[in-house]
Structure formats: structure tokens, C-alpha cells
């Protein structure tokens, strides 16, 4: 009897399990056959609070408008992004749209090898802007900066490769309560000289109370952003002198070439001034901070162990959502003409943003659905799509006509400051960047000094600069070679369809941008040849 009951119990459990599995398969799980025949993937490393929500909002609306297409957002942590991108692109398994930044270590060849230009599309209006003020505006001109950064960093000067989602700037985020507790006022320092006074007050408070409080939350990333900011400011006069082409801008490859020509070095007085200011700030960070990444600085600030954090607005949403105290956002106080360190090299207020839009998405050459991927690019950078991103991410928009929520208005950099583009640090090339970051501790640690850093960099730079210039040439070669095939193909197709006016235009553009790239390659090669081998 007992045996029979347990047999029924077993059978009952089996039937119940089967019924549950049926229920789950037909009601809760992903359909075996997707109702959407096309799936595209968009991958990025912006896993901070905000951007994933923004991209989700775009996807939700896009899928409503396009029932054939499913869009998947792939979030890849920054720590593994470089390896993830390289291996997936080599294996032709990368997402259709991929975020890439020119500063990513050791990846300068990626755009040339794996990304597809979208120049023709950029010259036409974005179809998703129909009914808006941008309806008839070419896509490229709908971006708040006309895709300035993207154009500058494009592997081929005559081509467009990416769209951007946001505008970024660098700001000083302040723990208002802590500032008031220490200084007795909420008033922010207006100049760098005022900031020196606040640093002093914070050091005195920490010594008096025994609380381990620092003026600035420190990490290798935040220090690197700050140093770029200070160096580009200190070097503006020299950048203008070195701007031989009259661009009012100095491109990264020009910084390298000018170094070889002896037009600047880390021993130049302007660089030393910038480094001196960097040291002044960094001694107000927790010792040993160069070992930590940005998350550590964020945590230090959120714990109330630092009054300020210098960060990009990309960290703004995380800081605001996670902090238990009110955060105020300020522009970093700048040195003035009478500053004892930077004064002699003063040019004007230098840029803390506004240099262009970012979060660049590129079209993977191996995409199985390039048309749909470009269509999604159109939507996410339309007025509607970019408004969704802004509203859900707390990040600035990249598209004109998008309304900026009042709580992030302070992130926007008005056109009231100068930039020549050159930051004389990590943007020049991956080898120089590695040398800077390897030697940063010599500048920032308690026992470090400007001289130690300068000496180490002057020893590393001759070879690092040559290596990065050679990489610039080889990256452009990767672009230029296949263009011959494209030019010949456009010409052959044009012969067969002379009535198609777009083919000669495509060929002419390709020829023109190829010639520009080759001119630059030969110029860089000449600089290397004249400079000779590193001594």
C-alpha cells in the first residue's frame, strides 16, 4: 500500500513537472523561432548608471517602429573591452554596431581594419528626423559639433565612420555638506589660487580631526583626465606657435612630428608649468592612488572621504544616483593671468568640454545586416531617439534640437573657452600613452617631482614617438590599399551605368580622401626620415 502511494506520488510529481515545463516553454521563455527575422547587436562599455537605460529606451521605441528587427544591447565592462573587441572582430563575431574610442590602448588599427565608412549616408538627411526642424539637414550637420571629434579621429580624412550619442565634459563634483563643514561656506573657489586655499583648509581639517579626508578623490583615470586638462591649458600658446598649417588646431600626429622636430618636449617650460599644477593637485589625493581605477575614486568620494572628484560627466549619473549627500557640479577653477605657475603661459580659459560629441558607434564591416544597423544608427541619432537617450541616461545629447533636462544643464560647456585639440599626453598614440601612465607615479607620489617625471619621459619619448608615428603610417596604409580596389570597382560600374551619377561622385570622393591620406603618410614618413633613429 505504502509502496503504491509513493509510486503515485512520483508519477504525480513527474506530471506536475512536465506540466510546469510546458507552461514555462509556451508562456515565459523566448520563442523557439523569433517573430523578428533580423537581429542586430549594439555593444559598448558605458555600463555606468544611465547609458544602458538610455539605449534600452531607444531600442524599445525602435522595435515598436520596426517589427522586423530585434536589437540587443551588449554591455561589456571596460576592463575587458579591448580584448573583447579585438577577439570578436578578428573572429567576425563582433556586434553590428560597436563603440570605439581612439584613445583605447593598442587598438588604433581597429577602425581601418574592421569598420565601414558611412560617408554617403552622412551627406543625406536622417529619415527619422522627418517632421522636425532637422528634416532637410544632412545627417552630419544634425550633431551639435558636426561630428568634429569623429572627423578628426577618422582613419581616413575624407570619410565619416561613426555616429555619437552624447556630449561630454569634465567637471568638479563637490560634496557640498563636507565643503561647508570644513570651510564654513558653500562658496566654491573661483580660481586656481582660491582652490589652493581650500586645499590648505582641507589638509588642516584632516590633521586637526584625524579624519582621513582628502581634497580630491584619486585614481589613475581621474588623474589622467586632470593632467590632460591642465597640460592642454598650459600648452595653448605653444600649440598656437606650432600650428604651422594655420588650422587653429594641432592634431595628434602633428604633436608627434613636432616632438621629433624639437618644437616641444616634456622639458618645455609650458609643460613643466602644467606638470607643476598637476603635482599641486595630486598631492591632495590619497597616496598610492595611481594603483586604483576610477571606481575606487568614485567610492572614495561617495564614502565622504574626499570633498571633490574631478570626473567626466559620464560619471555624473552614477554619482548622483548613488550619493547620500547633495552633489554640486562646477567647472574646474582655472589659473589666471597672474598665476605664479601658469601665468607666463596664459592664453585664456581652456576647454573643459565642448570639444565634441562622444560615445562613438561604428558599423562593423562583418555585420550581417548593415542596412538595418545603419537604420538603427539613424534612429538613435534622430531628435526622437536622442531625446529618449538623454531623458533616460542623464547624459547630454549629441543632436541639435534635443531638449536638455535642467539637472544636467551644468554639464554643457558654453563656447567661452579655447582649445587647440592637443593635450600632449595619452591622445598622441598608444606607446606614448603607455609611457605617460607608467611614469605618472613619479610626478604624483609624495616623494615624486616634476623633474623625475620629465627625466623619465624624455628618456622614453624618442623611441615612443617614432613607434607611434610608424603606427600612424601603417594604420593609414591599411585604409589606403583597399581603396584602390574600391576606386577601380566604382569606375567599372560607372562605365556600365553612365546614367548613375552617384558612382563617379563616390569614386571622386574616394580618390580625394585617399590622396589626402597618402599625403599625410608621406609627410609623417619624411619627418621620421629626417629625424633618423632614436639615440
Amino acid at each position, binding site marked *: 500500500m505504502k509502496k503504491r502511494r509513493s509510486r503515485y506520488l512520483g508519477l504525480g510529481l513527474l506530471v506536475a513537472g512536465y506540466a510546469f515545463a510546458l507552461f514555462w516553454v509556451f508562456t515565459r521563455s523566448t520563442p523557439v523561432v523569433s517573430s523578428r527575422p533580423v537581429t542586430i547587436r549594439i555593444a559598448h562599455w558605458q555600463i555606468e548608471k544611465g547609458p544602458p537605460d538610455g539605449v534600452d529606451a531607444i531600442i524599445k521605441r525602435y522595435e515598436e517602429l520596426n517589427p522586423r528587427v530585434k536589437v540587443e544591447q551588449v554591455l561589456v565592462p571596460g576592463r575587458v573591452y579591448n580584448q573583447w573587441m579585438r577577439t570578436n572582430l578578428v573572429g567576425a563575431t563582433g556586434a553590428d554596431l560597436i563603440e570605439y574610442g581612439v584613445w583605447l590602448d593598442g587598438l588604433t588599427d581597429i577602425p581601418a581594419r574592421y569598420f565601414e565608412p558611412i560617408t554617403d549616408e552622412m551627406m543625406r538627411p536622417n529619415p527619422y528626423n522627418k517632421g522636425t526642424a532637422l528634416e532637410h539637414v544632412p545627417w552630419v550637420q544634425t550633431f551639435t559639433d558636426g561630428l568634429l571629434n569623429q572627423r578628426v579621429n577618422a582613419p581616413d580624412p575624407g570619410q565619416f565612420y561613426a555616429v555619437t550619442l552624447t556630449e561630454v565634459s569634465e567637471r568638479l563634483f563637490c560634496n557640498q555638506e563636507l565643503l561647508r563643514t570644513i570651510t564654513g561656506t558653500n562658496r566654491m573657489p573661483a580660481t586656481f589660487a582660491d582652490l589652493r586655499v581650500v586645499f590648505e583648509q582641507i589638509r588642516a581639517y584632516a590633521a586637526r580631526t584625524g579624519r582621513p579626508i582628502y581634497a580630491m578623490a584619486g585614481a589613475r583615470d581621474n588623474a589622467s583626465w586632470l593632467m590632460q586638462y591642465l597640460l592642454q591649458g598650459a600648452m595653448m600658446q605653444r600649440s598656437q606657435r606650432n600650428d604651422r598649417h594655420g588650422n587653429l588646431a594641432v592634431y595628434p600626429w602633428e604633436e608627434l612630428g613636432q616632438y621629433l622636430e624639437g618644437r616641444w618636449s616634456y622639458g618645455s617650460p609650458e609643460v613643466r608649468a602644467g606638470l607643476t599644477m598637476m603635482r599641486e593637485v595630486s598631492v591632495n589625493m590619497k597616496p598610492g592612488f595611481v594603483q586604483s581605477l576610477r571606481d575606487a575614486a568614485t567610492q572614495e568620494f561617495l564614502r565622504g572621504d574626499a570633498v571633490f572628484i574631478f570626473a567626466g560627466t559620464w560619471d555624473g549619473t552614477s554619482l548622483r544616483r548613488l550619493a547620500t549627500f547633495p552633489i554640486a557640479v562646477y567647472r574646474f577653477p582655472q589659473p589666471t593671468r597672474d598665476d605664479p605657475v601658469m601665468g607666463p603661459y596664459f592664453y585664456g580659459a581652456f576647454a573643459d568640454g565642448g570639444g565634441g560629441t562622444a560615445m562613438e558607434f561604428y558599423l562593423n564591416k562583418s555585420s550581417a545586416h548593415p542596412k538595418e544597423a545603419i537604420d538603427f544608427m539613424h534612429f538613435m541619432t534622430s531628435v526622437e531617439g536622442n531625446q529618449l537617450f538623454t531623458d533616460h541616461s542623464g547624459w547630454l545629447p549629441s543632436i541639435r534640437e534635443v531638449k536638455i533636462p535642467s539637472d544636467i544643464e551644468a554639464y554643457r560647456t558654453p563656447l567661452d573657452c579655447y582649445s587647440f585639440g592637443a593635450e600632449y599626453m595619452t591622445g598622441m598614440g598608444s606607446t606614448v600613452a603607455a609611457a605617460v601612465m607608467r611614469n605618472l607615479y613619479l610626478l604624483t607620489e609624495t616623494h615624486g617631482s616634476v623633474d623625475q617625471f620629465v627625466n623619465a619621459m624624455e628618456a622614453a619619448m624618442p623611441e615612443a614617438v617614432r613607434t607611434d608615428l610608424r603606427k600612424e603610417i601603417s594604420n593609414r596604409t591599411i585604409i589606403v590599399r583597399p581603396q584602390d580596389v*574600391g576606386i577601380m570597382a566604382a569606375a567599372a560600374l560607372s562605365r556600365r551605368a553612365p546614367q548613375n551619377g552617384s558612382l563617379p561622385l563616390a569614386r571622386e*570622393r574616394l580618390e580625394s580622401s585617399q590622396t589626402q591620406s597618402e599625403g599625410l603618410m608621406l609627410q609623417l614618413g619624411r619627418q621620421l626620415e629626417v629625424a633618423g633613429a632614436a639615440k
Partner: protein
Amino acid sequence: MFAPYPEWRRGCGAWLCLTLLPFARAAAPATDDTAAAWQLMADHLVRDAYVRLDQVKGPPSRESDFAQAVVAVDYQPVTQARLHEAEATFAALAAGNDEIAEAAAYMQARLYQVHFQQLDYPRAAALYRALAERHPESHWAQLGLVKLGLLLLYALPEPSAPAERIGAATVLLARIHEEKLQRDLHLQIARAGTFYDQPLDSVLAHLIEVNRIGGLVGQAPEDLAVELGELSLRAGHYAQARAYFEAYLRDFVPNLRSVTVRRRLADLAALEAKAKGLRP
């Protein structure tokens, strides 16, 4: 005969179509596959183009030979042996007297300029020169002259003095009749001029021509607009500088460079006042 049976007629029609299809395919000109291959190359699908060209039936045509050599130039992994085979094909085709001959001669020079592992600029220059002698009005010869100009500006051993390099490239302009190609060489001569610190007036003359012809895309148009203003200012042509700076502010999306341009306009006003002996 089939009038009372329309469904029979339709059925027979379909049957005939299906039966004749393979014959029609076989009879179709081989060039259709070549055209498809060109389209694949234009779409950057070089591997697919390579496969498609293998399917070309019948005796090879000059065009299919040319297409096969072109695709080999970017068929990954590119090998030196394959490039040398392509060169032999280009050289043979270049002996002809049609547009394929001109394009093949151009591609042969390109191999020496950018494709071979061991580049040979003098050889590339000689091939561009020979092409321009033989087919002076061909587009490929004209484009070759632009590339020859680049080599003269930076890479060839002679002439070695910067002014002579620029002079030699400038001479080529008279032989280029396609306006857009003239523009590209003018731009390169101007860039070389600032690179070699040549007199600004000579640089400006080329930039003004580039601006007149127009049609650049990407970063170049904005750079050009600023360069025209800034170099005019440095050369002391204040009215011209003002006109170009104002055009820049009017024609381009404002960005941080506009702030510097506004400052340069203020500098310009001060310089103009100084030139007139007035206080700014």
C-alpha cells in the same frame, strides 16, 4: 489551342521557363559575373568577388582578367607572390589601347607606391610618367599625375630642396585637366608649403584654388576654411583674412574652434588699427 484551358497555358509557360533557364544562364555573357564581382568589390566584399570571378564561364575577357588582378590586390591574406602575379597581368593589359589598359598601367604603378612590401617610389613615379605620356587625357593618367605630385613633394630623392620639390609638383598642375584632381594636387602642394615653411603667399594661392573648386568632404572643408583665414592673417592680408574667418563662422557648425576664430578676428581688428596708426 490552349484557349479553353488557361491553367494549362500557365503551366506550360512555367515549365518552359524552368527548362530554358539553365540554357539562358549558360548563354548569358560572362561579363554579368564580372559586373557582379565589381559590385561586390565596391561593397568591400573582396572575398565574395574573388569567388564570383572564378565562376566566369567561357574565354577570359580583358575586363575579367583585369578584375581578377584588381581583386588580388586586396584578397586577404595578401601575399607578395599574388601581388607579383597581379603586376604581370597589369603589365600585359597595359600594352593594349583601351581604358582597361590605362587603368591597368595605373594599378601597376600603385603596386610600387603602396602595395608591395618593399615600396619603390622611383619605379612608381616612372610608371606614372609613362602613363601620362602615352594617354595624357585618360582619367587614370591624370590621377597618376596627382600621385606623382605627392611623391615629388615628399618621397623622391630628387629634387631634394623643398622649394624645388614644390616647383616640380606645381608644374604637373598644367597637365591635369580634371578640376577635382587639380584641386587635390593644389591642396597637397599647399600642405607641403606649410610643412616646409614656404612663403605664405605661395601657399595661399593654392588654397584659394582649392576653395574655388570646392567639393571636399570630411574634415578637410572646415580645416581649409580656417587655414585660409589664419594664413591670410599671418601674411598680412587683413581684409582677406576677415572675409574667410567670417565665412567660416557662417558656414560651419559652431564648436570650440569658433571661439579661437573670434579671438583671431579681434587680433585682426587690433592689427588693422595698428596698420592704420590708430588705437584699437
